[in-house]
């Protein structure tokens, strides 16, 4: 649950941007919403009933999946067990992924976080940031993966990056929507990241404008290309492992991600030819049947067909490499999850004696011994070549 905003002395220099801060100046700071493209509005802002995770699970459970998966049951847990994964336990903890908040300058149609400019309440405060750093130290993880929302909009973002990348010499990933780098207070970030060796992982669903703007809002493509040019100018995307630029593509509709290597060649060739822009790697991810993408599937009457497609493509070879097995997911309020998708579904991590552990209680041993929670949405990560925060899993 949200902690009280007990500001530390160091906190004085930070503007509290929409953290739970009754009576503070958080609300005042957000009177001007961040500029950015809009493909839709947040479900939360529309008070859509589907905002409730329970409703989303109901929709997934109601789908009639015939002869689906290896057991034909359409139950993820049974397909896991059939593939020899019972119990379903983690591997080594390598990555701490922190979702620093739901605030974003964009409102993409497929967003599983239901992020947007109106999500000003859910932003990690400084105390929780400090608790995350303690958990990172205990975890032994080599990588800190920052996501959101637009993580750069959290007032403690740069402090957190500095503490991880410089003070602790860890690999830091910024999951960036690109357009934020073109907004005034964030234009320095490409150079700033380059000085700290931060890997920038950016969303660009397509190498042409049509599909990119359809998913992420009119004007996204142009701004994204400008941001990629800024990153190239800062030394990113040129094969330097200290300045790694990774693009992420996910389908602009109800189909699965294509072959990652093949798409990477297409993206590289087309972006170089059309814009003179370069990058290092492309990750192809599936869309998860939840939140705004689920809402879109419902509008199209394609929930069952899409789920069937995911389940038919169930690939047991992806299970060992699933991100939930090597990643600890932390929410803006410090609660812990097996992955960012479970996080958005309020599907808490459970370990021995604790049904909803908080990052301040992080215990590596309890994590190592806990059983990962799964449900039908998990078929999104095991379909085809697999899909996770690190891209395709089973590349033959």
């Amino acid at each position, binding site marked *: 649950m949200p902690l009280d905003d007990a500001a530390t002395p160091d906190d004085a220099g930070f503007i509290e941007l929409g953290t739970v801060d009754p009576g503070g100046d958080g609300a005042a700071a957000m009177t001007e919403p961040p500029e950015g493209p809009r493909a839709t509005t947040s479900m939360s802002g529309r008070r859509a009933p589907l905002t409730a995770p329970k409703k989303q699970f109901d929709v997934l459970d109601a789908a009639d999946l015939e002869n689906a998966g290896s057991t034909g049951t359409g139950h993820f847990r049974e397909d896991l067990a059939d593939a020899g994964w019972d119990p379903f336990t983690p591997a080594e903890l390598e990555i701490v992924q922190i979702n620093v908040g739901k605030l974003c300058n964009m409102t993409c149609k497929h967003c599983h976080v239901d992020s947007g400019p109106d999500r000003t309440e859910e932003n990690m405060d400084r105390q929780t940031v400090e608790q995350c750093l303690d958990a990172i130290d205990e975890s032994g993880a080599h990588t800190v993966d920052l996501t959101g929302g637009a993580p750069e909009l959290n007032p403690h973002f740069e402090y957190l990056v500095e503490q991880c990348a410089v003070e602790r010499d860890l690999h830091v990933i910024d999951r960036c929507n690109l357009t934020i780098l073109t907004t005034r207070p964030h234009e320095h970030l490409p150079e700033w990241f380059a000085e700290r060796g931060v890997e920038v992982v950016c969303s660009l669903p*397509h190498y*042409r404008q049509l*599909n990119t703007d359809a998913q992420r809002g009119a004007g996204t493509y142009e701004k994204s290309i400008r941001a990629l040019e800024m990153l190239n100018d800062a030394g990113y995307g040129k094969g330097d492992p200290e300045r790694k630029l990774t693009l992420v*593509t996910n389908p602009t509709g109800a*189909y699965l991600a*294509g072959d990652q*290597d*093949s798409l990477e*060649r*297409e993206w590289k060739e087309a972006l170089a030819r059309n814009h003179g822009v370069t990058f290092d790697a492309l990750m192809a991810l599936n869309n998860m049947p939840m939140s705004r993408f689920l809402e879109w599937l419902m509008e199209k009457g394609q929930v069952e067909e899409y789920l069937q497609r995911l389940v038919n493509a169930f690939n047991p070879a992806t299970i060992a490499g699933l991100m939930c097995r090597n990643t600890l997911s932390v929410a803006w309020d410090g609660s812990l999850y097996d992955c960012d998708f479970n996080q958005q579904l309020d599907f808490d991590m459970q370990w021995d004696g604790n049904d909803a552990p908080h990052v301040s209680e992080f215990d590596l041993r309890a994590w190592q011994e806990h059983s990962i929670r799964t449900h039908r949405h998990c078929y999104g990560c095991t379909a085809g070549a697999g899909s996770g925060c690190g891209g395709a899993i089973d590349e033959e």
Partner: protein
Amino acid sequence: MPDNAYYDPEHLDQFEDITEGSPELGEKFFDYYGEVFEDGALTAREKALIALAVSHVVQCPYCIDVYTDASLEKGADLEQMTEAVHVATAIRGGASLVHGVQMMEQVKEKMM
């Protein structure tokens, strides 16, 4: 789906059953088919777009379904796919029109 319809969408899922009558030829066909669409001198996306165009020429509804999805999955967008269908249309239309020269010649022989 009426009982007497010529096209049944279910037949697409049952395509591989065609091996029943001749397993050897069926398997050869499907192995070949799979290999044709791998990345080669042409990319998988380019091949999917060619297949999409040809699907429209042979007017195969199964193929149109499959290669619409395949084109999207391999990274094509609506503009590229529509251009591919126009290429098919241009060749198909042109193939009719170029026969007009035969018509013209005959007319010129027969008319005063």
